[in-house]
């Protein structure tokens, strides 16, 4: 069982925000051939809002922290990624103060994402990163390789949800942008040392 604390969670979010800022243009470029070219700006707008909402704040518990994160994402990102990332943090907020087990938290987040977006594994969405990562966290075996493999696995998939689905077979050969940003989320989580 891997416990998450408010401090670690804040570190996690800082790392995620930094990664998004660093890769903003790259994420939008990924979103260009198979989407509408805005995933980087969407996420950057969202994480800027998240940082404004949590920076220098003292949160009593994970519940308050995650709720603030969720509200910032939901009200600032828009598009597909806003409700999805927002829902993920909202579901974690719901569990937050009773249950700080990372496996449980991420499990609830993924269930929320799947309910909100209706995507299943294999549909070439961020669900394809979250599913193996959450499995690995629950099994106590999350590594950077698990994350990277999950992100790369979306390259050969045919999109069935999101804008990329309009391309059908022609979506093959491109990484899914939401999966790449989710990869940064979990890379940032590993970097906190929470699994060490």
């Amino acid at each position, binding site marked *: 069982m891997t416990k998450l604390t408010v401090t670690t969670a804040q570190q996690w979010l800082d790392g995620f925000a930094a990664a998004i800022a660093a890769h903003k243009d790259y994420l939008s470029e990924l979103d260009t051939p198979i989407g*509408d*070219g*805005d995933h980087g700006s969407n996420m950057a707008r969202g994480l800027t809002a998240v940082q404004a909402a949590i920076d220098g704040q003292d949160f009593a518990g994970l519940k308050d922290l995650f709720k603030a994160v969720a509200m910032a994402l939901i009200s600032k990102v*828009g*598009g*597909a990624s806003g409700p999805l990332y927002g829902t993920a943090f909202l579901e974690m907020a719901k569990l937050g103060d009773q249950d700080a087990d990372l496996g449980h938290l991420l499990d609830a987040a993924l269930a929320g994402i799947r309910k909100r977006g209706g995507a299943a594994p294999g549909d070439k969405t961020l669900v394809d990163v979250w599913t193996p990562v959450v499995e690995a966290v629950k099994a106590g075996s999350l590594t950077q390789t698990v994350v990277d493999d999950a992100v790369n696995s979306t390259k050969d998939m045919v999109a069935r949800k999101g804008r990329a689905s*309009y391309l059908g077979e022609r979506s093959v050969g491109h990484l899914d942008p939401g999966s790449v940003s989710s990869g940064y989320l979990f890379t940032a989580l590993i970097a906190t040392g929470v699994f060490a």
Partner: protein
Amino acid sequence: MKKIINDPANVVDEMLDGLVRGYPQYVERIPNTGAIIRSNKASMQGKVGIVSGGGSGHEPAHPGYVGKGMLSGAVAGQVFTSPTPDQIYAAIKAVNTGSGVFLVVKNYSGDVMNFDMAKDMAELDDIPVKSIVVDDDIAVKDSLYTQGRRGVAGTVFMHKILGAAADQGATLDELDALAQKVLPNIKTIAVALSAATVPEVGKPGFELADDEIEYGVGIHSEPGYRREKLQPSKALVAELVGKIDDEQHLTADKQYAVLVNGMGATPLMEQYIFTHDLLNNLGDRGIKPAFTKIGNYMTSIDMAGISLTIFELADPQWLDYLNYPVETIAW
């Protein structure tokens, strides 16, 4: 990128401000949101509110359709990005006068999810909300297992029909039934001569050579189904009408409304020529549309191109709805 803007990050905010300040008789903005609602509050009393919206960049959609007889509110997101649930919710609350609110959503993951979340919020407030997800773009293969088709210019007809019915006192359930019945009768398909440039991106969504066109593009520069050499207007019409005919068998004994929609940078001169060829093509099939509209109604920023919507008027009352008077900026 050559545009009349200031900071690319502020285009939506400045544009909405320009719009409501220029047209205070029709619209106002809920402060600090992208929600544009009717100024004529009396016209909404006792009626079901109709709220639409989506990413910006489709002007005059959607604020241009807000006014008596059409939308009650339109929520604008960032360019090509769905608005957020809190802003949609603000519009719902503002236009609800007790009879509930009907949402017109275009079928994009983002729009569907954000409008759904807003609906959840409104229901917590006991505001009855129903919605329709418009998916008129036949360029995309449809399937139960995918996102399905995009919502594009045909959405404007949905606004008009529902707005007229709501103004005449239709209930939320009646609007829901009407929307469900109308939806499968609206089919749209587009051809692009050039892609849109999102201000924050700074370059076109795709590149077409000087003599190339692309059939089946979406309103966010989503790629289409075929690229080829530029054709005469007649041939473009034949291709687009042919595709619609494959979907929705066009016959002389039915009534149709058509929308020839410019994508933003295509002048009316070309749209009227296209219409001339369209009416000839339909004429050869024994069809004379009962209603025609030509202009920039659902654009894709500065994309050059045209979309064609054919709406089968399965119920004769729909024609009355289309002709029903409205007070809006852009219908």
